[in-house]
């Protein structure tokens, strides 16, 4: 895959620390993601990948460090501020609004880009009605975009596993992100579904959204990512294009538990 990154930095973190009691879940983590790339994050279970996602999306407050996005300081900002700035995510353990329809789930994603207040909701002035119609239309087209339009009226929990993953992506895209962070989106998918997902991610990137991706499927990552960073015990131990990372002795050690020589 050609490196599409044009060198413009979108997200930059440095010196990020996150501790849970005695556990140092993230230790001096730094990375910078360029606009337009698919940036992979790998590492053994418990390495701190999800924790880093939680820090990047404001769900966890980091203890120290720097965090800027498009030059805006997002260090210890609330999730809604982060989303408003243009970062959206999915969850490793799917977190949909189970008892809302697929369409409503995506409509919730538009919340942050819409303005109607109580008065608008109650009086339904033309502006609010237009906004609501826009939300509906956009949600429909996003369901279409991820390929689950026909399930729009079903409760999210009744969707198949793969479709739930897609719905989470559609819901995240509804917030108009510039950076989409996907936490193990292919987990539990069969090869066919994984392949479709790969195509979807490429489509999303080609439509101008930068992707930060956690995945275990090495083959998928090698074929998809422009750059990959490796976390182990909360530390970044390697970073580079897939070929480099694959052959990095420290990475091999982290994965196999063997000494490099």
């Amino acid at each position: 895959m050609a490196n599409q990154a044009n060198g413009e930095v979108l997200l930059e973190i440095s010196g990020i620390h996150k501790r849970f009691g005695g556990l140092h879940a993230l230790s001096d983590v730094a990375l910078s993601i360029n606009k337009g790339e698919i940036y992979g994050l790998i590492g053994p279970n418990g390495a701190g990948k999800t924790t880093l996602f939680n820090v990047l999306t404001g769900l966890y407050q980091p203890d120290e460090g720097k965090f800027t996005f498009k030059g805006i300081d997002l260090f210890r900002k609330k999730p809604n501020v982060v989303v408003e700035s243009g970062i959206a995510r999915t969850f490793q353990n799917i977190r949909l609004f189970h008892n809302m329809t697929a369409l409503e789930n995506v409509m919730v994603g538009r919340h942050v880009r819409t303005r109607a207040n109580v008065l608008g909701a109650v009086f339904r002035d033309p502006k609010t009605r237009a906004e609501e119609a826009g939300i509906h239309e956009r949600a429909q087209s996003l369901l279409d975009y991820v390929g689950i339009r026909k399930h729009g009226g079903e409760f999210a929990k009744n969707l198949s596993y793969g479709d739930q993953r897609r719905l989470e992506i559609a819901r995240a895209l509804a917030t108009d992100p510039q950076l989409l962070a996907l936490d193990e989106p292919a987990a539990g998918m069969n090869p066919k579904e994984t392949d479709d997902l790969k195509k979807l991610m490429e489509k999303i990137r080609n439509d101008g959204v930068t992707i930060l991706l956690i995945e275990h499927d090495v083959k998928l990552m090698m074929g998809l990512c422009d750059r990959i960073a490796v976390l182990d015990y909360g530390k970044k131990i390697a970073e580079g294009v897939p070929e480099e990372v694959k052959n990095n002795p420290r990475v091999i050690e982290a994965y196999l538990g063997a000494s490099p020589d």
Partner: protein
Amino acid sequence: MLANIKQSKPAAYAGMAIFAVVLAVLPFVMGATLGNTWVRNLDLAMLYIMLALGLNIVVGYAGLLDLGYIAFYAVGAYVYALLNSPHLVPMLSGTGFEWLLHMPLLVVLPLAALLAGIFGVLLGSPTLKLRGDYLAIVTLGFGEIVRLFMNNLDRPINITNGPQGVNLIEPVSLFGHKFSQAITVFGIEFRSVHLYYYLFLALALLIIVVSIRLQSSRIGRAWVAIREDEIAAQAMGINTRNVKLLAFAMGASFGGVSGAMFASFQGFVSPESFILMESIVVLAMVVLGGMGHIPGVILGAILLFLTPEVLRDVVNPLQDKLIGERLVNPENLRMLLFGIALIFVMLVRPEGLWPSKQRKAEFHEDDDLKVKDAEKEAAHG
């Protein structure tokens, strides 16, 4: 009702028209068949419908368990009572604040709603991080605190008149007509209870419309999203703090409106009307009827309000006839039936008597989720 206008239009309009006629003649039919107490009961039922719809916003939509809801009813009631009775006259006379007294209804009602809404935010802000049992305990405490204030704010300055309550509250006066006086239109005599009925009906309809519109707006979706999964709602960029406070404020303001109407209707308020049991009854109306579903909540309010009234009318005459003496106090029977009904509903229909499709699905999600989990396991393995 209003929620399902979507069917074929002529049929829907015909249904609405019939329904409107039924509502319009209801107090007269009730008065003629069951007597005047029942028209009064009808009025009170309307107040409970408004209350239950307000609590439904907090508990049903946003999923925040509130056990102190009656406090907002109390705030509304005291706002109306103090501004429309002789009680504060000595205190305010000569201070330049006399204009506060006897304001028109269209000013007092929004004021009651606003003040109750502010109390809603006051209750909401310290509880934002709490859920479930913890939230229930704190809100319960809040409800009691408000009641205790009403009970004790007769010293050092007599604001609430303490346990004696506020008396001689003026009835509503609308378009220059005092609701305490009967009015005859087209040869039909509308008495005070009738006038209040139409006023309460109008307010209840207003609250229903507002509820429906909020529910199907971006705000309503945000409430439900928080109820479903607060973390995911945050990750979608919802400012959960503001949206929750809004739920508290909206619910409280409905409570405030019904409280104000209660005060004018009764002509008297005292802290005794706002005990914990009242909060629990309103909560039971919401839960029993069907949380988050407006028709269900209305049904719950009607059922729970009317049961004791029916018992009062039925049990004593029945006992007199059958056994010649009164062994069972209808008031006690009411609590017994109440408890049995709740247990029954929790066991058999935890989603309530008339739930929304959504809620029904939620309460039977175990069945689906087990299958889903099995699928997930298989997929992982």
